[in-house]
């Protein structure tokens, strides 16, 4: 069959639907970026999880870090002496950034205790001082056509006083812009 097995609507439908997917209160998860196991423990008081998260991130770092053909290209993105030569096991060598931190996220129970399981990914510091971590790996709908994706690590969303609005949209017409 070439078509979707089902096609459903949540918001657009006038049919009554119980919306359960969005129960994600801020307190229900713990997320953090740590530069060391010690920093993680200091924050979370959970040395076991921090150690495991660090180890897993380190293991993933080689496979998920961006790959460069030479040291210069890598250092252009990640800074001097922040890159190392690696090998993919099939005798192709490449250069990749060194892991400079790890990202830990974990679901919390209602009373604030850590629930089983966590997610950790390696984090890299780019030459502009920003932090990145690998996006979800290729597979499924993404066939790796866009290669290894790095995404910025964003801590908690922050607020800023808006100085002005309506700086976008002047080219739009009421007929729409889509192709």
């Amino acid at each position, binding site marked *: 069959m*070439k078509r979707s097995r*089902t096609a459903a609507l949540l918001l657009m439908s006038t049919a009554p639907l119980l919306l359960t997917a969005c129960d994600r209160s801020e307190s229900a998860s713990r997320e953090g970026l740590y530069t060391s196991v010690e920093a993680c423990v200091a924050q979370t008081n959970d040395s076991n999880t921090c150690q495991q998260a660090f180890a897993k991130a380190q293991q993933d770092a080689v496979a998920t870090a961006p790959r460069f053909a030479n040291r210069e290209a890598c250092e252009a993105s990640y800074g001097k002496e922040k890159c190392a030569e690696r090998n993919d096991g099939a005798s192709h060598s490449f250069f990749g950034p060194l892991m400079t931190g790890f990202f830990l996220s974990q679901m919390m129970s209602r009373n604030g205790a850590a629930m089983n399981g966590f997610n950790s990914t390696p984090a890299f510091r780019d030459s502009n001082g920003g932090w990145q971590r690998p996006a979800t790996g290729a597979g499924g709908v993404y066939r790796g056509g*866009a290669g290894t994706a790095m995404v910025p690590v964003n801590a908690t969303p922050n607020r800023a006083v808006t100085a002005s609005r309506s700086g976008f949209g002047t*080219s739009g017409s009421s007929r729409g812009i889509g192709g």
Partner: protein
Amino acid sequence: MRRVATAERPDWRAKAAACGFGFHTIDDAPYWDESAYYAFSLREIEVDIEAPSEELHAMALDMVGRIVGSEQHMQQLAIPEPYRDWIAQSWRERQPHLYGRMDFAYDGTGPAKLYELNYDTPTSLFEAAFFQWQWLEDQLARGQLPAGSDQFNSIYESLVEAFGTIARGIARPFHFAAVRDSVEDQGTVAYLRDCALQAGIDCGALAIEDIGISADGRFTDLDDQVIGCLFKLYPLEDMFRESFGEHLPRSGLQLIEPPWKALLSNKGILPLLWDAHRGHPNLLPAEFDGGGALPRGWVRKPLHSREGANIAMHLDDGRELRTDGPYRDGPCIRQACHPLTGFDGHYPLIGSWVVGDRACGIGIREDSSLVTQDSARFVPHAIVEEARGVLIA
């Protein structure tokens, strides 16, 4: 591939209303049209459309990597200088993308020919992914289609999967934005947001006009929250020249579609693809337009034309067609003329959807003109295995 006249569902307008399809009729003119459908064989879909779509998609992504390393290509695509490094960086980081649509001329004979890539702000998505799917289910249930009829349309499943895949890397808060007064664009982002919510992503919506800027150059929503990630159904090239555009490269705002899509939603990609893959069966010869008279057998298209605007076509038989529009100035390309085939006086253009990197469905826009414009109607399709005639010797 055949065009088949068929009975409309008597209740389709009520069904459209019930699922928020508010633009099935635009300015009193029909847009959704189920008085006919296009019937394809499975081979036509899989061999002639699905496989070439994935191949061309891979070729296009490969070309992005070449363009970001070339000032000359950036120049040819008229990418404004202040945005070039930012676009290149977004590609180096492989910032996630969501979807795109290729437009093909195809009539069931010979290879599908790529007219253009709509890889930044493609629309007609809700119609293709949802309403077309529901049409097939309803018509199968009513016995109006041959039993076992299928459709090339796993767009919905692919969208939910794609959102689920990129969710972890989407900065928060994540908002969907489109022009406030465009019913069609608002419908399209409402659908995308619906799919994102079904993938478990908490996300909001705001009008593109309501985006704010803070004194330190970050983009804000109506609650003064700094926007983490913005899905914008709004052309990158328009954002570049509007007053907030200059803040984009240093704002920290994550965009979907990402900045590197500016290289693929640009018709300059067509001559670059032709140069790199000269003679490819799914590509039409193309070159950058140096001005001057348009010879017979060629079409002139502005780099950023949408909805068939400002197209000049000089047919082999000497006829010339021109459409009006807002893209009068600026660079153009030329593409070899490969006119759409008429089916009972209707000219179907195949929109082939790519979600993530997967070709996952088509939507057909039918116009009474050789140039598919905003007047084109959306006509559903089905995969119907051809009845095998009994051969009598």
